[in-house]
């Protein structure tokens, strides 16, 4: 059941994004960065948590989830460390994914090269 909910929530977010891309011709970089900010703002307003409770990975795997993690991280860090937490919380909460992307990409670049798609 939780898999079905993840499928539906995640699928719906991606489908909506596709409509946005086809209608507006926004570049991917603009869409992705606005998603992170939107996810963060929605979480701050308490609107995103219900979606995470319902959809699980369906809400955290799309890039809204990146903003969600940042917001949660900042909230916890500010509560624990005060003003320094405002600076450390966001990055700390998302460090896993970013570090994995950087490290693995570097390693992969040693062994693979881009391919001719034709």
């Amino acid at each position, binding site marked *: 059941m*939780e*898999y079905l909910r*993840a499928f*539906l929530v*995640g*699928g*719906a*977010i*991606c*489908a909506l994004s*596709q*409509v946005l*891309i086809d209608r507006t011709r926004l570049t991917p*970089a603009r*869409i*992705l*960065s606005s998603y*992170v*900010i939107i996810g*963060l*703002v929605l979480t*701050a307003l308490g609107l995103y948590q219900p979606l995470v409770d319902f959809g699980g*990975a*369906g809400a*955290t*795997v*799309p*890039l809204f989830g*990146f*903003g969600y*993690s*940042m917001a949660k991280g*900042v*909230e916890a860090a*500010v509560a624990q460390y*005060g003003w320094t937490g*405002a*600076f450390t*919380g*966001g990055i700390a*909460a*998302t*460090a*896993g*994914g*970013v570090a*994995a*992307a*950087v490290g*693995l*990409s*570097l390693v*992969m*670049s040693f*062994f*693979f*090269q*881009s*391919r001719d*798609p034709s």
Partner: protein
Amino acid sequence: MKLSRQEYQKLYEKASPPSPSYKNVLMAFVVGGLLCVLGQGFRTLYQKAGLSEQGVAAAVAISMVAVGVVLTALGIYDKIAKRAGAGTLVPITGFANSVASPALEFKTEGMVLGTCVRMFTIAGPVLVLGISASVLYGLILVALGG
């Protein structure tokens, strides 16, 4: 015939085929949904392994990123993305793809000046704006709490 820019725009918009929306949206839904199901699978796995709530979130992100980077390196991710569009762009695997693809592409300019310098050409704005927004939110919390 002389056309104004507005008249020309009307003419070329008529000649330009629109994106095949229904097909695109359906593909985005299915592929994006399946990637989230995979994420849910990792989540269940790590929860059963007894990781903390934060630990599970980090482990899921790391696993999904690994999937994205490996599929990119094998030249599979862009082939799926051609059909799936937002279905592969919006999940965190798309973030991994946007970091891994320049890393592979620009290795011809060397590890430092190619791979390392160019790694964030696409993903950079996500981090810059995301981090800045999180700091701002943190400072607002401090101001409200203090």
